[in-house]
């Protein structure tokens, strides 16, 4: 099985494929990338079986163009964004409003022009009224992974990244951003129309959407609408809820 | 043997040569910058020409008017360059081998060429590890071994000493005769040229300033200066008659059976040689003269021609040989001895001043 997936799924898919392989003896390889690029490759006939997008819009587009099986379209979770700060450095922000403090000289977000998490970050900043102040301090990562690197390497005091990335990344503390401040980050997957292993693919998708699968996803912060995050998980991963 | 019509220009310099060369070899000389190298390069196909027709031994090699313009590598015209142009990345042996053709004796033999040019020790070296003269010899060898139909030599012996020159020149003559390889030789040294050929081509400013044998060229006062700059000499063919007292006696070919004594000639009896005489070494005398002179040669002859240029007088004397000798004498001596055309006269020369080879 060849799985193409948005970069923020790196860890979650590692667990999922390992678990799936243990169960079915079927190996699966994962190609990570930006959802936008992967979608373009799939439109050009890339030989993947399953596509996990960070933005369900890409899935809908591909299905509309006939590159995906409409029946396989599944929302596997809703993304959240967090304020990530390197541990042991400056005092972490307790919420978005704190970003106006001059100790945050550089704030990294993903490029809002094309990265869903970046767009969400911008919406949240605008919504909470700090956009005008922080705009000149922003630096833009190509994707959430790179955005996180800015903060990890100490070049940005804080980065707005995906919760799914913050959870498995050691060395930092983070604060969840209220999801009412941005439009929902609905994340979807599909089986490709060109897949040569359609049954296996569908079986894999079924596994992922099974309760056990969802539990794995939830461990990385992918919750379904209405679900809440497990506080113990937050605790373990040095995260906290906004003030 | 060679017909040649050429027009070209290099920048502002035009070169026009239109000649018929009868001999198997022709010497080309003229002042620096007169177009000698350009002529050779054009014949070899290395220079764009305005018009060129080249006929060698009846075969039309190039004719731009008839669109017969084979590229250089199909002309089989060899060229020894003024700057040797050895291939820097190849050993001397590989340089020599580069143009090697027809191992089955169609041209000069490998070992022969190497021995002649004394380059056997260099074969494994790179050109950069050879001296200037060594490179020049290798370049000559490389051209010879390619066995061309026509061989062009651009000052092939310029930085070699006389010893080496005297060794190489007869060999070139042999090449010319044995392989019917016509030669065009550029040189600033008339002695060098004449030992290969009777026929001379004199260039000046991209024009033919004179053509023909020495006698003919020397008959024109204007050309005499140019000839002098190239070192005027006479060459006479002959055969070694006998040796005596360390001297070789040479019988000049021709009706007169004139005999000349040469020092420093070790050619065996019966072998053909060329005798080289410098006009300013020859002394004219009216008989009789005394014996108390270290002068071995005393040849009777008749005055054929007297050429006077502002700075010198040249007297051509018929010794009954194939061609006349030229003697350069003072104006004053012509008056004192009362020399006129048709006079019977003695030509005197030291045996040491006569070279045979």
């Amino acid at each position, binding site marked *: 099985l060849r799985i193409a997936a948005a970069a923020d799924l790196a860890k979650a898919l590692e667990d999922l494929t390992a678990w799936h392989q243990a169960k079915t003896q079927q190996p699966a*390889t*994962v190609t990570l990338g930006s959802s936008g690029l992967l979608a373009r490759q799939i439109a050009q006939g890339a030989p993947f079986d399953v596509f996990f997008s960070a933005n369900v819009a890409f899935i809908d587009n591909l299905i509309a163009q006939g590159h995906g099986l409409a029946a396989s379209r599944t929302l596997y979770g809703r993304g959240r964004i967090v304020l990530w700060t390197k541990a042991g450095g400056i005092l972490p922000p307790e919420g978005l409003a704190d970003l106006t403090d001059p100790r945050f000289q550089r704030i990294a977000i993903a490029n809002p022009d094309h990265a869903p998490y970046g767009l969400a970050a911008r919406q949240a900043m605008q919504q909470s009224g700090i956009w005008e102040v922080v705009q000149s301090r922003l630096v833009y990562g190509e994707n959430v992974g790179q955005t996180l690197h800015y903060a990890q390497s100490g070049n940005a005091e804080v980065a707005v990244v995906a919760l799914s990335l913050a959870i498995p990344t050691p060395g930092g503390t983070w604060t969840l951003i209220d999801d009412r401040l941005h439009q929902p980050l609905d994340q979807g997957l599909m089986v490709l129309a060109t897949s040569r292993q359609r049954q296996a693919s569908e079986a894999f998708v079924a596994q992922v959407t099974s309760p056990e699968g969802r539990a794995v996803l939830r461990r990385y912060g992918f919750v379904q609408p209405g679900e809440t995050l497990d506080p113990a998980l937050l605790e373990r991963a040095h995260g906290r809820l906004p003030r | 043997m060679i017909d040649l019509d050429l027009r070209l220009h290099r920048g502002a310099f035009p070169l026009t040569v239109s000649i018929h060369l009868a001999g198997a070899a022709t010497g080309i000389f003229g002042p620096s910058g007169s177009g000698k190298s350009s002529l050779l390069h054009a014949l070899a196909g290395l220079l764009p020409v305005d018009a060129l027709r080249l006929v060698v031994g009846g075969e039309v090699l190039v004719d731009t008017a008839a669109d017969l313009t084979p590229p250089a590598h199909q002309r089989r015209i060899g060229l020894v360059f003024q700057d040797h142009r050895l291939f820097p990345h190849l050993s001397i042996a590989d340089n020599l081998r580069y143009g090697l053709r027809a191992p089955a004796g169609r041209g000069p033999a490998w070992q022969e060429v190497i021995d002649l040019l004394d380059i056997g020790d260099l074969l494994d070296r790179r050109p*950069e590890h050879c001296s200037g003269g060594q490179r020049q010899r290798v370049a000559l060898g490389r051209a010879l071994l390619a066995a061309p139909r026509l061989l062009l030599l651009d000052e092939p012996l310029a930085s070699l000493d006389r010893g080496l020159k005297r060794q190489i020149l007869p060999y070139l003559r042999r090449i010319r005769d044995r392989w019917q390889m016509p030669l065009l030789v550029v040189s600033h040294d008339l002695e060098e040229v004449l030992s290969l050929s009777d026929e001379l081509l004199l260039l000046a400013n991209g024009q033919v300033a004179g053509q023909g044998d020495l006698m003919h060229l020397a008959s024109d006062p204007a050309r005499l200066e140019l000839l002098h700059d190239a070192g005027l000499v006479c060459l006479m063919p002959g055969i070694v008659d006998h040796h005596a007292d360390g001297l070789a006696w040479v019988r000049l070919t021709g009706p007169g059976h004139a005999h000349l004594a040469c020092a420093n000639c070790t050619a065996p009896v019966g072998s053909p040689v060329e005798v080289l005489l410098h006009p300013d070494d020859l002394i004219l005398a009216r008989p009789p003269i005394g014996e108390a002179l270290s002068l071995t040669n005393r040849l009777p002859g008749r005055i054929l021609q007297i050429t006077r240029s502002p700075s010198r007088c040249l007297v051509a004397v018929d010794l009954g040989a194939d061609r006349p000798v030229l003697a350069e004498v003072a104006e004053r001596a012509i008056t004192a001895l009362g020399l006129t055309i048709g006079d019977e006269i003695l030509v005197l020369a030291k045996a040491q001043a006569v070279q045979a080879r």
Partner: protein
Amino acid sequence: MTPETWTPLLLSLEYASLGLALAMALGLPLATALALGRWPGRDVVEVVVTAPLILPPTVLGYYLLVALGRSSPLGQAWEGLTGSSLVFTPTGCVLAAGLAALPFVVTATRRAMEEVDPRLLAAAATLGAGPWRRFRTILLPLARRGIAGGCILGFAKALGDFGVTLMVAGNIPGLTQTAPLAIYDAMLSGQDGRAAGLAAFLTAVGLAVLWLVNRWARPQRPRDGAT
């Protein structure tokens, strides 16, 4: 070292070598024509060959993907001929590597050939060597160092190509995931150690290859300025 580490490295070396071979197969004749030919527009062609350097690789890769993709005429012709597609296959990797190397091969070769003393070529012609023989025995050996220099840079570039390979060949582990892609993946998935290890390895192997080629192309002895 696990095969997981080795595979991308080996793939990289393989594709970069094949890509360089492809670039040389196309580039050497082109560069020769540029160096020796007298046709107009030579400079324009050379400059166009360097164009791939200027575009962001991913963008270039995307355009390439569209041009060679499975729905393009070229891609379909190839697929009809060989049964496998040009893109998302090792062929795509080789194409990407070749494209990366081509500018270096072409410009260096052209320049090196133009530096060869034309008087030596003239001398070879008078010795009866036709164009092909002159090319083989004089031009190529004397331009060797310059050509090798271009190939070295080209190989390095091919080895390090990321964006074009990513787009055209698709980062499929074990098939088209070359070392640069694997390093990037490792970094994305937070395996910084693996990324650093792979990067160190790739650099070391790449540099070793370059160093060897460099040695081979360099003259043995230094020349002095005398005689």
